């Protein structure tokens, strides 16, 4: 049986500045890629997020992927969206994931199915992300299912994560929403990718004023950009992302754009570490996982505990 307590939680409690990254599971039934990535990333990160059919595209499940991470010696954070499963399936999968050794869950509403490869799908949204957080917490602390029925033994004891997007609107509500998530039971928070540092600092300022940085471990999300084209695409097409013109410009001018993207990401992490209340960094290098070690090293975050 795996340890009862999440390794990630222990690190936070020891006061470590945590580093997590993300692996996007494949669009097939092969787990060896996930295991290989895990082995490669293990010395550089404390835990790995496994996305749950991100952008509503069918992929190997986050729980399945999490088990591959465990097998390769890593610490998985399974993402769980409320888009595709009702409260029965969500709770059932939480039991299953915990029984397989998964200890961290990140609760989200998920990208709308209209972005994905099954646009005629019916979304579920029986629960929203905050209600899912509450459910995971109640299963652990009150030992009850969402219905109120008692879990007689072997309740899942997850370390509960949630996301926050300081770049979506309405801005002032973003902090209140973070507070709601924490009230519902979120213990760690991963933010959307930060490009607009000024806005993130304003967000953290409001969060600190409400004491939220003392109630949950807030991890700042970063994403290394591979090209000016990618930066422009995100600026124009991704809802809830703010990419300042300055970044697009800097990327456009660079001779070696991937190298510039890495450099920028390292600078961002160094700066984020100085912001009070930021307790870790979450590096989202989806489809560019191999770059994570260089970033972690460059940001001076080695060795990992």
């Amino acid at each position, binding site marked *: 049986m795996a340890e009862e307590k999440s390794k990630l939680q222990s690190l936070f409690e020891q006061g470590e500045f945590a580093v997590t990254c993300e692996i996007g599971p494949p669009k097939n039934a092969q787990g060896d890629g996930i295991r290989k990535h895990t082995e490669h990333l293990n010395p550089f990160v404390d835990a790995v997020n496994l996305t749950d059919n991100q952008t509503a595209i069918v992929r190997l499940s986050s729980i399945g992927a999490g088990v591959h991470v465990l097998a390769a010696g890593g610490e998985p954070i399974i993402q769980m969206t409320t*888009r595709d499963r009702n409260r029965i399936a969500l709770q059932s999968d939480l039991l299953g994931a915990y029984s397989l050794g998964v200890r961290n869950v990140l609760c989200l509403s*998920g990208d709308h199915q209209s*972005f994905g490869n099954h646009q005629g799908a019916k979304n579920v*949204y029986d629960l*929203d992300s905050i209600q899912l957080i509450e459910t995971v917490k109640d299963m652990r602390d009150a030992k009850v299912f969402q219905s109120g029925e008692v879990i007689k033994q072997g309740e899942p004891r997850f370390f509960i994560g949630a996301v926050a997007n300081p770049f*979506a*609107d*309405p801005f002032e509500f973003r902090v*209140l929403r973070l507070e709601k998530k924490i009230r519902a039971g979120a213990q760690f928070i991963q933010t959307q990718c930060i490009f607009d540092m000024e806005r993130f600092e304003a967000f953290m300022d409001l969060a600190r004023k409400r004491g939220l940085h003392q109630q949950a471990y807030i991890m700042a999300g970063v994403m290394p950009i591979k090209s000016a084209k990618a930066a422009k695409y995100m600026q124009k097409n991704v*809802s809830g992302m703010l990419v300042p013109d300055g970044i697009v410009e800097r990327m456009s001018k660079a001779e070696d754009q991937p190298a510039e993207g890495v450099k920028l990401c390292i600078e961002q992490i160094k700066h984020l570490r100085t912001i009070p209340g930021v307790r870790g960094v979450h590096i989202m290098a989806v489809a560019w996982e191999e770059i994570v070690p260089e970033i972690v090293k460059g940001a001076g975050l080695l060795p990992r505990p």
Partner: protein
Amino acid sequence: MIVAEAKPLEEILESLQGMSKVLVVGCGGCVSVCLAGGEKEAGILASTLRMKRELMGDPLETVEETLTRQCDPEYVQQLAKKLEGIDCVLSLACGVGVQFIAEQFPQTWVVPALNTKFAGATIEHGLWEERCGLCGECVLARTGGVCPVIRCAKSLLNGPCGGSQNGKCEVKPNECAWQLIYNRMSELGRLELLLDVAGAKDWSKSRDGGPRKMVREDVTIDG
């Protein structure tokens, strides 16, 4: 009202294949107001179908009738005298009307001419929008009079997801319902209300419990 729109003509023609005499039935209720299935639309559809079938070398005979409401057995019964020699009824009502005709006349084949869309209202001439999700347990008191159940693409009950930007939902071109809620709450000085965590909704009161029935003994005739 219930908002509906005409099915594609090809689909209607296909559903009338092999029929030579059709009773085209309009409805004077909601679908009349939303310009989809009233007397005028029934007339236009009947003549369009006749012309199309003529061109196809398979002429169609139509009889037209528009009822005050198709969701009322009393009115639907008025069709009884019109069914003689009819192969099929083409109803321009919402799904309720089509079913009421089917229930009242078990021996009659009935097909819909409309797609029933939503419970909504006219925003401007030619534009209708959904406003009520018919969830069976109204939350509008908590959300400043803006319904997140139906106006949020994810039916979120605790605030906007991360895809809300500049007032728009990530599902374009929708407005973000939670931005609207936020605006109302902040104008009315009730933002604090949005800090309460709304618990899981009881969807059994919505369609998930199967077809819903409502009984009010104070108004039943034998009650």
